[in-house]
C-alpha cells in the first residue's frame, strides 16, 4: 500500500465519520431547539458546546456572536473558511476519494460525488431555514450511512480498508472524548441530567444506553462512553479496534517504526480503564481531557510509523 494512498484513505475515514457525527449533532440540536427559546439560559450554553464540538469556537467568536442561529448554522454547515464545516468536510472526502479512486469501490466515490454535485448545483441554498437545513443534514447523513454500507459490503479487506477504518475509529474515539469533556465542563451551569442526556444524544447512543442501563449518573455515563468495550461509540471500543487492525497490518512482524505507536496505543487503552468512581469531579474532567488529548496526539504518531505522506493539494 502506497503511503500517500494510505494517508488519503485514513482521512476519508476520519472526515466521513466527522461529517456523519457533526450532521447528527446539528440535526438533533436544531430539533431540540424548537422547544427552547433563545432567551433560555441553556440555549447559548448548548450552542457554545456544539460550536466547540463541531467547529472552532475561538475562531467563530472573532467573527460572529454566539446565540444568533443563522450565523451559527451558516458557520457550521456552509462556511468554506471553516475547515470543519460540513461543506468543507464533504469537499475533503471527495478530494481524498479522487486521490484513491483506483482503490475504493465506484459506489463509494459516486455517493460522495453525487452529494458534492448536488451542493455545487445549488440543491441546498445557504439561505438558513430550519426546514432547508434539516433536509440538507438528512441528505448528508444518508450519504454517510450509504457510503459506510458500500465500504462494508464492497471493499476488499486489505490494507486500504484497514486504514479507512483506523481513521474512522480514531475520529470516533476522539470525538466521544471531546463531547464528554465539553459537557462535563458546562454541567455545573446546565442541569447535570441535561448534560448527560445531551452526551448520549450527541453520540447517538440514547437507545444503546437504554438497553444497557437504567440509571443516569456521571459515573455510569463515563463508564459507558469511555471504558465499555461493548459500546460502539466508546473510546475503548474504537481503540481496541485500532489495536487489532494495526496488529493485522503488521501480521505479527516487529517493525521498529511501529514500536512507539504500539506503546502509545497501549498507554491510551490503559487510560480508558481507570475507575472513574474513585475520581473527584475535577479529576474526572482532567481524565477525560487527557484521553481526548492523547487521541489527538496518536494520529501523527501513527502517520510517522507508516510513513504517511499527505497529498499535495493545488487548487
Amino acid at each position, binding site marked *: 500500500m502506497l*503511503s500517500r494512498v494510505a494517508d488519503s484513505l485514513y482521512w476519508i475515514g476520519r472526515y466521513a465519520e466527522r461529517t456523519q457525527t457533526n450532521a447528527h449533532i446539528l440535526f438533533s440540536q436544531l430539533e431540540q431547539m424548537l422547544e427552547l427559546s433563545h432567551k433560555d439560559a441553556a440555549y447559548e450554553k448548548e450552542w457554545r458546546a456544539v460550536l466547540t464540538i463541531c467547529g472552532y469556537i475561538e475562531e467563530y467568536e472573532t467573527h460572529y456572536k454566539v446565540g444568533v442561529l443563522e450565523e451559527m448554522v451558516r458557520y457550521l454547515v456552509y462556511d468554506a473558511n471553516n475547515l470543519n464545516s460540513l461543506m468543507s468536510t464533504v469537499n475533503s472526502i471527495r478530494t481524498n476519494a479522487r486521490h484513491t479512486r483506483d482503490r475504493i469501490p465506484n459506489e463509494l466515490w459516486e455517493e460522495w460525488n453525487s452529494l458534492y454535485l448536488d451542493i455545487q448545483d445549488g440543491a441546498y441554498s445557504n439561505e438558513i431555514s430550519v426546514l432547508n437545513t434539516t433536509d440538507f443534514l438528512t441528505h448528508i447523513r444518508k450519504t454517510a450511512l450509504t457510503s459506510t454500507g458500500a465500504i462494508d459490503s464492497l471493499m476488499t479487506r486489505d490494507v486500504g480498508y484497514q486504514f479507512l477504518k483506523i481513521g474512522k475509529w480514531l475520529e470516533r474515539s476522539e470525538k466521544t472524548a471531546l463531547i464528554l469533556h465539553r459537557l462535563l465542563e458546562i454541567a455545573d451551569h446546565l442541569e447535570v441530567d441535561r448534560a448527560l442526556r445531551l452526551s448520549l444524544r450527541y453520540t447517538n447512543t440514547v437507545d444503546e444506553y437504554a438497553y444497557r442501563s437504567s440509571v443516569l449518573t456521571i459515573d455510569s455515563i463515563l463508564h459507558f462512553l469511555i471504558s465499555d468495550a461493548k459500546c460502539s461509540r466508546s473510546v475503548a471500543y474504537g481503540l481496541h479496534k485500532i489495536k487489532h487492525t494495526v496488529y493485522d497490518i503488521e501480521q505479527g512482524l516487529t517493525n521498529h517504526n511501529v514500536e512507539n505507536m504500539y506503546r502509545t496505543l497501549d498507554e491510551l487503552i490503559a487510560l480508558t480503564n481507570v475507575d472513574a468512581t474513585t475520581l473527584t469531579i475535577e479529576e474526572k474532567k482532567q481524565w477525560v481531557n487527557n484521553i481526548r488529548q492523547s487521541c489527538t496526539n496518536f494520529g501523527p504518531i501513527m502517520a510517522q510509523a507508516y510513513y504517511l505522506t499527505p497529498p499535495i493539494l493545488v487548487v
Partner: protein
Amino acid sequence: MVKLYDSSMFYDEMLEGSKPKVHYQTFYEQLQAFSMQQLQDKHQAAQSSFLRKGITFTVYGAEGGTERTMPFDFVPIIIPEETWKMIERGMKQRVKALNLFLHDVYHEQKIVRAGIVPKALIDNNPYYYKQVIGTTVPLQNHIFLAGIDLIRDEHGNYCVLEDNLRNPSGMSYVYQNRYVMRNIYPEFFGDYSIEQLEGQLVYMRKALLAHRPANLPIDQEVHAVLLTAGIYNSAYYDHVFLAKSLNIPLVEGRDLVVKDDTVYLKTILGLKRVDIIYRRIDDDFLDPVHFREDSMLGVANLLDAYKKGNVAILNAVGNGVADDKAMYQYVPEMIRFYLQEEPIINNVHTYLLEEEETRAWVLERLDELVVKNVGASGGYDMLIGPHATEEERQVFREKILEAPHQYIAQPTIKLSRVPAFQEGRFYPCHVDLRVFVMSGDETYVLPGGLSRVALKEGSLVVNSSQGGGGKDTWIVKGGNAHA
C-alpha cells in the same frame, strides 16, 4: 417519426442521401420507435451519468469549475467487420514501422543515411532526446500504446490524420461510452452482434507486463505502476480507469524514489522495487535531474535507472520525434523502407513549409488550407483556413514566416459526418476515430476505438478541450455490408 437530414454534401457514416445505409438499417428502425421527448430524457440521463461517475476531464486555464464531462452522443459509429479488419491491418503495419523508426533514430539512423528522412528534421526536433541515444528498451518496443487518429474523406476512404505515440488518452471513454450506451440506450443494440470490449484489457495488461527490464532476473515477479501527474491532470480519469483495469498501483512522482539506480515505491511498510512504469506524464517532466529541473511531477535520477536497464518506461522516452506533425509526412516512406510494404491506410497530404516555393504556395492559399503547429496537440494553435477571418489568417501568416519549420499545412478535408442529437434535434457533425494499438510480445488493436465528434455545427475540431464529444463505436460481426 424522427427526421434526420439530407447528407448529399459530405460523406455520411449513416446516411445515403436521407436513407440509412444497410448496416445502419436496424438502428434507424429502432430510432423511429422513440419520440423526441424520450430521446431528450435519455440524453439528459446519459450526460448526468458521466458527471455522477466523475468521468471528467480538466480544462486548463478555464475559470470556475474546471471539471467537465465530454458530451456523449448516442448515434454510434457502426463499422462492418470486413472494413475493420482492413483498419486493423493498417494500424498494425503503421505502428510496426513507427517502432522500427524509433529504434533506428536512437541507434544507427539507417533511414537518414538512406536519404529518406532529413537529418535536420530529427536533430532539430524538440522531442528528440539526445539523453537516450543508444538506449535499448525491452522488446525493442518503444510504443506500448499508440492512439492513431483516422478520418474519412469525401469518398469514404480512411486516412491517418495523426499519430499519438507519447501519452494517447481516451481509452476510458471507449469503455464508458459503451457502458452508458448499454445502460441508457439498450434498445438500439437490437439484432446487432458487436465486438465486446470486456476482456480486451487483459491483452493490454499482458502487453504491459511483457516489458521486463533487461536486468530483472527471469524468476522474479515483475512490478508495474501507472505514473500520473495527479488529480488536476486533464486525463486523470483515464489514468484511474487504466490503473484499476490493469490492476497496478496509480502513483505520483513523489511516491517513487531512485536509490542505487533502482526505482522504489514508498509504501507503508517501506520501499518496494518497481520494474515497469507506464507513465502518463511527458518526457520533460519525468526526471528533474536530466530534463526540466523545475518538474514537481517526476522522479530524480529516473533516467539513470532506465538507461541501465533496471526499469522500463512506457511509452519509451523520446517517442515524440516520431509523432511530430512534420515527421508524419514521412510515415508512408517508413513503411516502405522498413517493411517493404505499401501503406494500407494513407496519410492526408501534408506540406512542409521550410522550402520557399511550397511556403509561398501555401501562404497564398491560407483560406483553403488547415495549418497546424507541429508540436501542439488537442486542437491548439491551428488555423482552419476556410472558417477563419482574414485577421486570423494574417496572424498565422506571420507565425509561419517567423518559424516555418514549426508549422505544416494540409488541404481542408471534407471529414465524414454523422448525425448527432443535441438540444432536442438531429444535425450532421464531423467525426474522427482514435484507434488504440497495444504492443508487447504481440500487437492488439482495441476493437472500435474512440469516435470523437465536432458537436459545434460546422466545426472540424473534435478535441474534447475544444467542445468535441464522444460516440460509441461498434464493430459489427459478420456485417459485410458496404460501409
